[in-house]
């Protein structure tokens, strides 16, 4: 149990937030609000998972929000402005996301550029591309492609569709990170990249893979976001990379690498979303970022204090 101490603390925080918000505003427990929370926790979990894997392997991915945006915007742009069918449009968006991950990973793993710098560059560049592509305006689906939109706004087995995507991703990634050699290598590289290399780990390929996974999960969540909204704006996903880092850190990842768990990231995403929702429900939505920032700082402070004991 000791290994999961952080996760247990975060679970307690999540439950406290849940109960506290419900007491402050009974509307919190309304079906619409709950379902909305589930949807957003799922969407945040999706892209935060990728970020967490990158962080566990000792990197950082600042391009999360922009990749979400590119995936979403290119889907609606292709479908609405270029007359491409929705199926191929989705496929192209995913391939583009994968290609971005590959390029970033290659620059980081083989050219040795720092992840912060590479992903900062693509964060700005991709956001710019989205702005140029759309001319700075929204591209809505205008009631077309109900099948695609169902993936974002629909409900399956009583739960919002993004939940099922996130569930699949969480199970798959938990398996990958905690039960396979790839996962073990990620932790080893984050813990000590040189020792990993000297132990015969193909460090460069594993690094590359973490960035590809992150970009791919961002692509999926970008698609789900536009399907849900259902419109793509060039500001889609702004600051989401920071939400991703926040969820990962709240969930027990260390920015030095080598620490964290998939389950923890979901808890982190839950805490983040509940914080946003709680602030909205008490009618102080302008305070969203103030409270979220406070929660993150409080979490790391408590964590340090517990660690020191």
């Amino acid at each position, binding site marked *: 149990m000791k290994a999961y101490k952080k996760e247990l603390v975060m679970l307690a925080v999540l439950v406290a937030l849940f109960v506290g918000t419900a007491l402050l505003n009974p509307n919190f427990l309304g079906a619409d609000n709950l379902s909305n929370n589930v949807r957003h926790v799922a969407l945040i979990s999706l892209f935060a998972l990728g970020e967490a894997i990158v962080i566990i392997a000792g990197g950082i991915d600042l391009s999360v929000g922009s990749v979400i945006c590119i995936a979403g915007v290119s889907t609606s742009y292709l479908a609405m402005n270029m007359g491409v069918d929705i199926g191929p449009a989705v496929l192209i968006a995913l391939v583009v996301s994968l290609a971005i991950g590959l390029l970033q990973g290659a620059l980081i793993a083989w050219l040795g550029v720092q992840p912060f710098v590479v992903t900062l560059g693509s964060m700005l560049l991709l956001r710019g591309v989205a702005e140029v592509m759309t001319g700075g305006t929204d591209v809505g689906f205008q009631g077309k492609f109900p099948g695609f939109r169902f993936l974002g706004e629909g409900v399956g087995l009583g739960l919002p569709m993004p939940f099922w995507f996130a569930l699949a991703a969480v199970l798959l990634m938990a398996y990958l990170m905690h*039960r*396979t*050699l*790839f*996962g*073990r290598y990620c*932790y*080893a590289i984050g*813990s*000590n990249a*040189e*020792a*990993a*290399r*000297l*132990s*015969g*780990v*193909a460090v460069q390929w594993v690094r590359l893979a973490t960035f590809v996974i992150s970009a791919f999960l961002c692509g999926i969540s970008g698609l789900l976001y536009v399907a849900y909204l259902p419109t793509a704006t060039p500001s889609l996903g702004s600051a989401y990379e920071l939400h991703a880092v926040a969820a990962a850190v709240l969930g027990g990842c260390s920015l030095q690498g*080598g*620490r964290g768990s998939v389950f923890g990231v979901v808890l982190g995403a839950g805490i983040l979303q509940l914080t946003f929702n709680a602030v909205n429900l008490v009618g102080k939505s302008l305070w969203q970022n103030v409270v979220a920032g406070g929660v993150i700082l409080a979490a790391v402070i408590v964590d340090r204090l517990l660690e020191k004991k």
Partner: protein
Amino acid sequence: MLQLDGVYKSFGGVKALRGVDLRVGTGEIVGIVGGNGAGKSTLMKVAAGVHQPDSGSITIDGRTPKSPADAIRLGVSLVRQELTQAHDLDVGANILLGHEPHRFGVIDRAELRRRAVAALDRVGGGIDVRTRLGELSPGQRQRVEIARALSLNAKVVLLDEPTATLAESDATRLFELLEQLRKQGLGFAYISHRLGEIMSITDRIVCMRDGERVAEMRTKDSSRDELVTFLAGSAGLIEAELPPVGDEVLLSVEGPVKFEVRAGEILGLAGLVGAGRTSVLRRLFGAKASDLTVTVRGKPLDIRSPRDALAAGMVLVPEERASQGLFLDQPAERNIALPSLKRFMLEDEAAIAAPFMQRFGIRKGAVASTLSGGNQQKIVLSKWLALQPSVLLLDEPTRGLDVKAKRDVHDVIREQSVAGKAIVVSSSEAEELASLCHRALVLARGGIRGELQSRDITDANILRLAT
């Protein structure tokens, strides 16, 4: 004068110090010896104000330091290990780091330079204050550290394993410097595993075991054997019969350095620090770009990365345990099992590690960073033994280890030799190579300068060939 009385210090449940007394006066060198985990380094850190004791008192000329800054002000300086120096800053900046002369926060560069030069002069000079620290040799970096202590007006200087990374000539130079400073009235506490130097440079010796001071003696009244007995409870390195060497050449190296190692043979690599021993091993293992042609078991190899070397059955125990050999924040089992994992699905790490954990008495689930240097090195050895390699390359495999841990490591190496492996051991200690190796190559400036048979491996012979 530095005085510690009845100092207790625990970390978590581990009692690092149990009622230790220590006095270091002016003009004397006090040697502190003891196994890994005996509490020597903790004692130094308590004396330097880095850790506060749980009970007991520390006084420097009658006053109690509450922080490292306090201790420095009162005249006690700890010569930090290499890792804590700022390699990207120049020598002058390092000497006065945290004590820069300034006016309203603006550094007075002329004054800083003047003080740095003055301090460097006292340690023998020959180092330019504008050189980036990272460009200096380990010996020079250490003199910079001592200059730093002097510039802080230290009266007592604490040295923790100062010669562990030094070449023989640098070490000799250090001893001369200490002797000279001692005559000027400085006091030293000197931790070392090398009993030879403890015997030759100290005035008094404090023996520690399990956090206690078990003996204290005047150096001129004691003998080396006596010390060894206190430390390990029995005699030092074993003068064992060397295992027989087989006929088959397992490892053959061509290129700027040329040698062969047969099955069961233990080949030593001797030479001063910087002679290229580490470089040769790292090139063989593919850890750095190589110009060597390597043949293992008669099969020529194209080694471009450690993965290639491992595939051919060749492993390397690297020079730096912590930064190159271990995943410090991970449990021992994961450290040991990692290179053995081959299938995509995780295999049972505990089962792979179990025989080694048992043999070396390492607690299940112990995180690597919490273990002693000896146990850490045994983990690094275990992770390679689990692969059953045919060629073992070992770079300073016993650096910083106490007598007992050293003997354990030597046992493992001999065992591997008996099992018919080819072994290459690099060490800066002639004594170690002499007791362990069939023969040794002496390296200098990246090339082989000569070869010594087992009984001829002595400091004098190595030096003669190397220079």
